[in-house]
């Protein structure tokens, strides 16, 4: 299928402010109380854990003053209260740290759950076009890779960012309080750190993005090879496959190696810049101390302490450690932040996809037929369905659901300027079987896509029981149409669950009845657990034909007035098909059926056969009529033409 493929959005390298803001907004709206509370706790603990440095300095000052006298009793009178304050501060900080760590766990998972559900709910409402034009692996990666990066971002990077900046600011203030010259030395080092982080962190991010790409390529190759492994075996093509794999694997290694090397090197560099900074501070401090250079600090300005003393230098050095440690912590998050923001961007992009519009107001209701033949809503299951059609003047009319489908002059294009259908007009009366025949790309499946409004027509009209289908609520419209597709999709669950998918409140008996109708009963009872056999991996343990039979049973249990069978029996052998056909004939009785089939034997007994070519109906009529016409159908039938 050469339908347009959306390119996977290239992850941005720069921090996107708008995206961050939106993310934070989402967080707030998810937990309007807990998020500010957590942020408060983080800030509080950051500040509280910066203050002890002051008290340590005070204790050391006392020690310094009392060392000479050696009088512990006197010293302890001053030291003990300070240590008590210290302990209280520590307890406060531990309480706040415990609180926010616990809250963070709750918020992160709650937020991820919310995002997952928002994405999933949004996705259910997207038009089929979205799924036709995006690779499934790509859609999936929103739920796996992108959510994982978001988890890292929300649970670690954001809190650490907040905490680090709070600590850095507090420490910076305290450092300024003590000594401006020494602080300047530290700031100089910090600038160096930022420079290195930007350089190396940037390189790392670049290679991480490349690694992500090679990983995708490798995955694609593995996927192709693993699914074609049997072909590889039959052709003894193992050597060549290994050769190709080694090449791709080598590329992945190169990119992964670079990405990790950059990331690994960043840590030690930043840390040791911190060490050097420490030495620098100590040396400069020592020099200032020896030279008795007057100290300039906020404290000296306010309190008039003029000289640098050892009891300033020691805590200052400790603060230098704390300061650079936090800068380091921040730099370690840089990759996670860049990747997390790219993930957030893709998640928001999926949530922002325009949902399938549904302006329909005609709904399907249970009805009872009154004596005069008119209908009224029943409010309970009656077996009779009616279209409830409210009009502009406030009146409501009821039309019996019969399954009469008419198309008038329908045009359609998947892409602007590339029309797929031209002037399609057809009518299917209730109970009629209408077949479409034609080459691949002739537009057979497209027509059925229009009836159930997977796609909307460009021009013309489609009426269902006389009502324009645009006016019918999509879910009700689709409920009245059963579809069975060539590519069968079964869900994880039992066989019974899968059949019941067609009608959620169907009893076991109804499901079994439907299976009998579809001729699936015989093989189902022979499965290890009969109807309760668990299916997984899209029914991997069943043959294609068996899966088609289940999907027919699934449509049968829904009991819709109109059915669309798109190559529904292509993988069933003709003998079984003939048996299914009997069931289907019973099933089709009183129903309008649209059939697309490759095998002419499947469509021969249709009331009307439409031969499509390049989006136009070129012949129509029943089998005998078309054979007598000796046109395209006749040629197809006699094998003069190829059906592709």
């Amino acid at each position, binding site marked *: *299928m050469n339908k347009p493929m959306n390119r996977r959005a290239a992850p941005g390298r720069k921090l996107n402010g708008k995206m961050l803001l939106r993310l934070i907004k989402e967080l707030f709206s998810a937990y309007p109380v807990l998020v500010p509370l957590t942020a408060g706790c983080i800030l509080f603990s950051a500040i509280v854990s910066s203050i002890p440095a002051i008290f340590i300095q005070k204790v*050391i000052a006392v*020690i310094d003053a009392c060392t000479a006298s050696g*009088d512990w009793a006197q*010293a302890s009178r001053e030291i003990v209260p300070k240590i008590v304050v210290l302990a209280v501060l*520590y307890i406060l900080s*531990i309480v706040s740290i*415990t609180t926010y760590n*616990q809250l963070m*766990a709750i918020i992160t998972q*709650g937020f991820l*759950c919310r995002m997952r559900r928002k994405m*999933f*709910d949004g996705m*259910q409402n997207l038009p*089929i076009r979205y*799924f036709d034009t995006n690779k*499934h692996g790509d859609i*999936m990666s929103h739920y796996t890779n992108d959510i994982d990066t978001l988890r890292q971002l929300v649970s670690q990077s954001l809190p650490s960012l907040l905490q680090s900046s709070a600590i850095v600011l507090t420490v910076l203030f305290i450092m300024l309080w003590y000594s401006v010259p020494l602080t300047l030395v530290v700031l100089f080092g910090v600038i160096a750190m930022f420079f290195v982080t930007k350089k190396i962190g940037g390189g790392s991010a670049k290679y991480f993005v490349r690694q992500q790409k090679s990983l995708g390529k490798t995955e694609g190759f*593995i996927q192709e090879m693993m*699914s*074609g*492994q*049997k*072909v590889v*075996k*039959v*052709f*003894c*093509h*193992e050597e060549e496959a290994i050769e190709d*794999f080694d090449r791709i*694997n080598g590329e992945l290694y190169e990119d992964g*190696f*670079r990405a990790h*090397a950059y990331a690994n090197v960043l*840590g*030690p*560099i930043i*840390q040791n810049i911190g*060490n050097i900074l*420490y030495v620098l501070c100590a040396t400069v*401090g*020592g020099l200032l101390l020896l030279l008795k250079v007057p100290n300039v600090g906020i404290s000296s300005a306010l309190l008039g302490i003029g000289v640098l003393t*050892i009891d300033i230098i020691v805590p200052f050095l400790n603060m230098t450690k704390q300061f650079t440690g936090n800068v380091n912590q921040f730099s370690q998050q840089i990759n996670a932040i860049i990747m997390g923001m790219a993930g957030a961007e893709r998640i928001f992009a999926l949530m922002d996809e325009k949902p399938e519009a549904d302006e329909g107001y005609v709904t399907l209701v249970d009805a009872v037929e009154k004596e005069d033949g008119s209908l009224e809503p029943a409010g309970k299951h009656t077996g009779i369905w009616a279209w409830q059609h409210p009009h502009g003047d406030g009146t409501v009319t009821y039309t019996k659901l019969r399954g009469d489908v008419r198309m008038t002059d329908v045009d359609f294009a998947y892409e602007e300027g590339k029309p797929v259908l031209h002037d399609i007009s057809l009518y299917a009366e209730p109970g009629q079987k209408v077949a479409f025949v034609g080459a691949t790309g002739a537009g057979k499946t497209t027509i059925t896509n229009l009836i159930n409004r997977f796609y909307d027509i460009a021009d013309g009209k489609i009426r269902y029981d006389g009502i324009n289908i645009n006016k019918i609520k999509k879910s009700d419209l689709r409920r009245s149409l059963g579809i069975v*597709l060539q590519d069968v999709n079964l869900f*994880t669950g039992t066989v019974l669950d899968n059949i019941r998918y*067609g009608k959620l409140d169907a009893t076991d008996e109804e499901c079994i009845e439907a299976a009998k109708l579809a001729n699936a009963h015989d093989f189902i009872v022979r499965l290890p657990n009969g109807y309760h056999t668990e299916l997984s*991996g899209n029914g991997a343990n069943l*043959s294609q034909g*068996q899966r088609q039979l289940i999907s027919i049973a699934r449509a049968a249990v*829904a009991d819709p007035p109109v059915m669309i069978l798109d190559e529904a029996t292509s993988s069933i*052998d*003709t*003998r079984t098909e003939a048996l299914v056909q009997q069931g289907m004939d019973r099933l089709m009785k009183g129903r309008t059926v649209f059939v697309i089939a490759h095998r002419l034997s499947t469509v021969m007994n249709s009331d009307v056969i439409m031969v499509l070519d390049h989006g136009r109906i070129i012949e129509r009529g029943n089998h005998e009529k078309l054979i007598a016409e000796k046109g395209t159908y006749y040629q197809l039938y006699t*094998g*003069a*033409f*190829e059906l*592709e």
Partner: protein
Amino acid sequence: MLKRLAKCIREYKLPTILTLIFIVGEAIIECLIPFITANMVNQIQSGAEIGVILRTGLLLAVMAILSLSCGGIAGYTCAKASSGFAKNLRADLFRKIQTYSFENIDKFSSSSLVTRLTTDVSNVQMAYMMIIRTAIRAPLMFTFSIIMAYRMGGKLATSFVIIIPVLVCGLLLISRKAMPAFRSVFRKYDRLNESIEENVRAMRVVKGFSREDYEKEKFGTAAEEIRKDFTRAERIVALNTPLMQICLNFNMVFVLFVGSRIIVSTGGEALGVGQISGMLTYGMQILMSLMMVSMIYVMLTMSAESMRRIYAVLTEEPTLHNPASPLTEVPDGSVDFENVSFKYSAEADAFALSDINLHIRSGMTVGILGGTGSSKSTLVQLIPRLYDVTEGAVKVGGNDVRSYDIEALREAVAMVLQKNQLFSGTIKDNLRWGNENATDGEIEEACKLAQADEFVRSFPDGYDSWIEQGGTNVSGGQKQRLCIARALIKKPKILILDDSTSAVDTKTDALIRAGFARYIPETTKIIIAQRVSSVQDADLILVLDGGRISAAGTHEELMKTSPIYREVYESQTNGGNENE
């Protein structure tokens, strides 16, 4: 298991060892730095000469640069070692899978093999990286810090006697509790993602039955459950930080209080102020190293599942083996089944094939008909030895297939699978799978025979046209004909078509068969089909039913003797298909 996985390190042993060595260097320096820093602080405090202070400062700076170099190099070699290990793991896995028989492949589904080659390898890679970075560093730092702390602080180090047991117990308790919680939540998480994939794939069904709300609800319930479990697991792990903080802060208060007492009461003899800050740093390092050990433990347990899954692939025994002295030449295209019975696994109760006796002469055309699940494909898969018989023997060219070299046998027996696949690449690339050295002339010839030449030529790039992954840009019938051509290029002695013309129209189908009869008369042709017309003129038609040959003979014979055959024939020709 670890031993087998460790084998994959191979040429990356050197970077691994280098990483360990440099990390030891980095760790030693890191431990020395606080010691020297403490000295420096004391020097400043005691009013030492500026020259002495500067010398100490210089020493520290040199050490920092050394530590930086060691750390940098270790980071580099570690990246090399872990990425290389992952590369080798993937390569080994891929090679191993290439030796698998069909039975092995059936055992692991293809999607699970993909996960093992990607996600699981990534998990192991991360664990490996963590381990070589911290496995030596953490115990080393721990021991070193303790020794230094004792040497420096003497009695002050009693603090560690208190906090280390607390921390160790706490960490153990937390990981013991968190581990099972995480394991179960990850399993659920995988299932959730599988169900999303299912939903995406089945979107037409979901929408067709208007089941959007049902799906939302189903997903919502599952997502909520994951949220609850995940939150519980994460909350347990979140206790790590406060535990760490408690120990760290206790150490601070203890060292400060006891230290100041010692300093003051001894008049600065036993201990200096510098030692206090040194002790605080060592306390931090001890805690960090314990933290690292607990992290390794967590990583190892988390990746254990991945390791187990990789190990399972690496140690899976291929079920088919070449015989000791194999025959490399297949004399002719005759095929004999002698009392063959077959079941897919030893545990299966039902035989897929029973009591098959069959003799096909070289050059014959054999048609096989049968309903869904009648084991038609199973029967023919025994000929190129894709599976081994359970009982009896299959002979090709008069010799048991188990006596041939597998590659030689499969060269002689070309099989076009029912679920066939083209690979991304040009048409020519795909066709050359049959024979790498095929000339353009041979390729064309095979395509003409498979009735593919004409449409290939109609493509703008002809034989160089690009085939998308899975062959999505050619139609079903075109794909089937290319697959037939690919098999013909092998110039096989036996050609098996497993329902390979189902999407090809009857006329082309007939042309292909006519071509076979005319151009490769000496090749044995075995054709599985659903259309009677595809097998009608075969020399021998087999009707399979429930894994047994229910009837065999020519069209005319079967019309008389086999009710099943007659039924199939009539179901396909009802309405009077006079032209076939």
